[in-house]
């Protein structure tokens, strides 16, 4: 961001703040309009909400491992769609004191905030396909709410495409930051933490198995508690390399020399030299995990129970997950160059086992954990004991719970 751009943005923020007082359009309300506006894509059929469907906890509503986009709505992407919910406690990317990569937005932490996060989807050829700021500014200038945009950000805002793109990203970030829809904290587990309802016996068992270091040890990276009474978001914002199997459903993987290695590339290249980080992807929140159609960064798994089975059986029963080499041996960790396979996490529970050993969780225990994970779905209705993210409270704006 250049200095002048930043200065102008700051001026617009001030202008926007005063505009808010008059109940005029706000950055957040314009952000919501942009979020749902398919006319801002080259195909005319893709908006943010296309892949980040509010009814699906702001994630995809189909079973594809990677989504299709571009002008023809047929260009495949490279990574599975993350949910946009519960992003507020996240922080810019940094290395913690012990060297652990932490924070950052998107799967590889390449964006440092919600503003930067919106950049790639708007421009990328396999997504909204605006290619550059000029293309986007032209479409935005033709939108039904363009006058509101001018009123808020200046009459000449579309004359500077870079600025128009930046303020649009800012509007999107304000929408996501302030709208309760993105962080409703209204799951069954939240009501349980508030001691308004009780979990079922199976869900309680699942919580214990989720936490126990000798069982799922899930809470090691997906903390189920947070100190000081704040509701947990089930991620510690760190990165891990789980050795998820290579997904043939991603067209890019047809090239045997192509590897998506997260922190060390190919999309973010600033850490390309840190080969020890190759294969690490950001730990996602597990809120709404039971509503997801695909799991992990490459969308390899399509079923929650199978995903958990992968965690606990990856090392006790590798032949179930990985292909065989020509010599008949299982080729574990087939989605990373063999020289970097050592980067895969094999030390922590539940991975610290050998073929033939009992998995950390039995089949019945996995069912318990699944039952618990279902309590993390937003929009819980105690009357029917069911949850639906689409039901999450609307209209309660500007509640920044974290």
């Amino acid at each position, binding site marked *: 961001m250049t200095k002048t751009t930043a200065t102008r943005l700051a001026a617009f923020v001030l202008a926007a703040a005063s505009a808010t007082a008059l109940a005029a359009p706000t950055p957040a309300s314009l952000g919501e309009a942009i979020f749902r506006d398919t006319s801002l894509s080259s195909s005319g059929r893709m908006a943010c909400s296309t892949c980040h469907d509010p009814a699906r906890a702001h994630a995809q509503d189909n079973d594809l491992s990677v989504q299709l986009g571009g002008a023809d709505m047929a260009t495949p992407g490279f990574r599975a769609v993350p949910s946009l919910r519960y992003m507020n406690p996240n922080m810019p990317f940094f290395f913690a*004191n012990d060297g652990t990569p932490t924070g950052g937005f998107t799967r590889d932490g390449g964006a440092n905030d919600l503003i930067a996060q919106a950049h790639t989807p708007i421009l990328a050829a396999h997504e909204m396909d605006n290619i550059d700021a000029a293309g986007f500014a032209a479409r935005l200038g033709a939108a039904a709410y363009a006058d509101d945009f001018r009123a808020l950000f200046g009459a000449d805002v579309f004359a500077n495409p870079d600025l128009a793109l930046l303020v649009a990203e800012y509007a999107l970030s304000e929408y996501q930051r302030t709208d309760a829809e993105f962080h409703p*904290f209204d799951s069954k587990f*939240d009501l*349980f*933490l*508030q*001691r308004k309802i009780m979990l079922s*016996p199976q869900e*309680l*068992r699942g*919580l*214990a*198995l*989720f*936490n*126990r*270091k000798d*069982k799922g040890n899930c*809470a090691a990276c997906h*903390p*189920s*508690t947070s*100190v*000081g*009474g*704040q*509701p947990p978001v089930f991620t510690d914002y760190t990165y891990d390399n789980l050795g998820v199997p290579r997904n043939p459903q991603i067209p890019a993987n047809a090239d045997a020399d192509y590897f998506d290695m997260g922190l060390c590339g190919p999309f973010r290249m600033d850490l390309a030299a840190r080969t020890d980080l190759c294969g690490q992807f950001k730990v996602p929140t597990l809120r709404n995990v039971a509503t997801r159609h695909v799991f992990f960064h490459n969308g390899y798994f399509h079923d929650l129970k199978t995903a958990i089975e992968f965690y606990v059986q990856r090392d006790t029963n590798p032949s179930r997950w990985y292909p065989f080499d020509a010599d008949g041996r299982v080729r574990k960790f087939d989605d990373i160059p063999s020289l970097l396979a050592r980067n895969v996490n094999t030390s922590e529970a539940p991975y610290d086992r050998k073929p033939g050993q009992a998995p950390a969780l039995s089949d019945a225990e996995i069912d318990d954990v699944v039952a618990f994970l279902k309590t993390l779905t937003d929009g819980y209705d105690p009357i029917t004991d069911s949850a639906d993210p689409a039901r999450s409270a609307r209209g309660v704006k500007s*509640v*920044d*719970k*974290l």
Partner: protein
Amino acid sequence: MQHRMLALAIATCCAALALPARADEAALKAEVDALRAEVAALKAEVQQIHAAQSAPAPVAQAKPVSQQPIAVTDAAAPNPGRSMSDAATANTTSLWGYGQIDYNHPTARAADARADLTRAVIGFDHGFNDTTRVYGELEWEHAIASASDAGESEVEQLFIEHALAPNYGVRAGLMLVPIGLLNEHHEPTQFYGVERNFVEQAIIPSTWREGGVAGYGNTDSGFQWDIGLVTSPNLGKWDPTSPDGRESPLGAIHQEMQLAKAHDLSLWARLNWLGVPGLNVGGAMFAGKIGQDTSKQFEGDANFPADNSRLLLGEAHVRWQSGPWDFTALYTRGTISDTQDLNLGFLGQPTPVPKAFWGGYAQAAWKALAWNQSSVVLFLRYEAFNTGAAYATQPQGLGTPPLPTQRVLTAGINYYLNPNVVFKFDYQDFRYDDPVLDYGNRFDLGIGFQF
């Protein structure tokens, strides 16, 4: 110290000049001649004394006490005279300090042997006038404190004390909790063994202090009392994923006045009876709410079900020091209420909140040798403690079983080079090894001093 001595010397000089005014004028006139004669005689005698002092000090065998020259020790201070005592007090500042360097060698895991500059402490007090003083104590733990080092830099005490009478007064600020025998008197020369006893680290946290106001005093009949209204620990700090709460439940949630949540306050009270010399029998309690209204400290719905949780910690002790013997027994037990709902959210976590924890020890020490200022003290201490003696019940049998009671036998030697410099050696036998808490049989070496 240099300045202090200089000030005292000047004060002494003034006292000397002021002296004649103190005595009856007539008597003085009459006695001037006699005094002059006595001065001459005394001078000779003083020279005699000085000569005796400079004579080679007995080492192998102590002379009979009555034959020893006048002992001028560090306790000696030039007498400024009663008339100058106020001047000597007002606006005085003094420094003190203590330090502790430890070496721990686990017998089963020699690789874990560790040498540590456990603490270095500088203390000060300053008298504003005869009745009002400020005390402060600054501590560095583990040698180096920075963002990337393990050490800590902390203020251990900082309070104003105002004496309402010679035997009672009030204090306000950050104060050590008057519970147990070690908390207020934790200089390494004051306890036996390289490390402080476990009971007064695990159950009563090490160097536990809280901020608030307190009264103190003692009575002619030998009672020593304290009562205070102070900040409470903060149960909202409890981290069920960390072993801290298992090492010391209260140590994990006390706030040390570090931007301390102060919605809930606690009361402390202590009563000791010291009416027979050598005996200290008494007890103390610390009680208060510790939820700190945590559920209302963030926007949105209440998410902390232990706002009304209460801590009650009680302690009783007896100590008998007579001749070479020093016997101590101490027992302490704490409870935390309203933990069931809180722990429900912690199911399966390694460290839920205990509802009861306790510890006790018995210790015997014997001063086997003493010569000049040096002495050798042998001691034996048996401790039993449990930081998770009971947990609130949970449904489905998902609750946490009580922790096993740890028992430690410590035998060792304190060698006092002088009363303020000590070298220590001990061996500690643990009933069971606990790698999480680093408990296992070990021998320890230590150096301690205070001034």
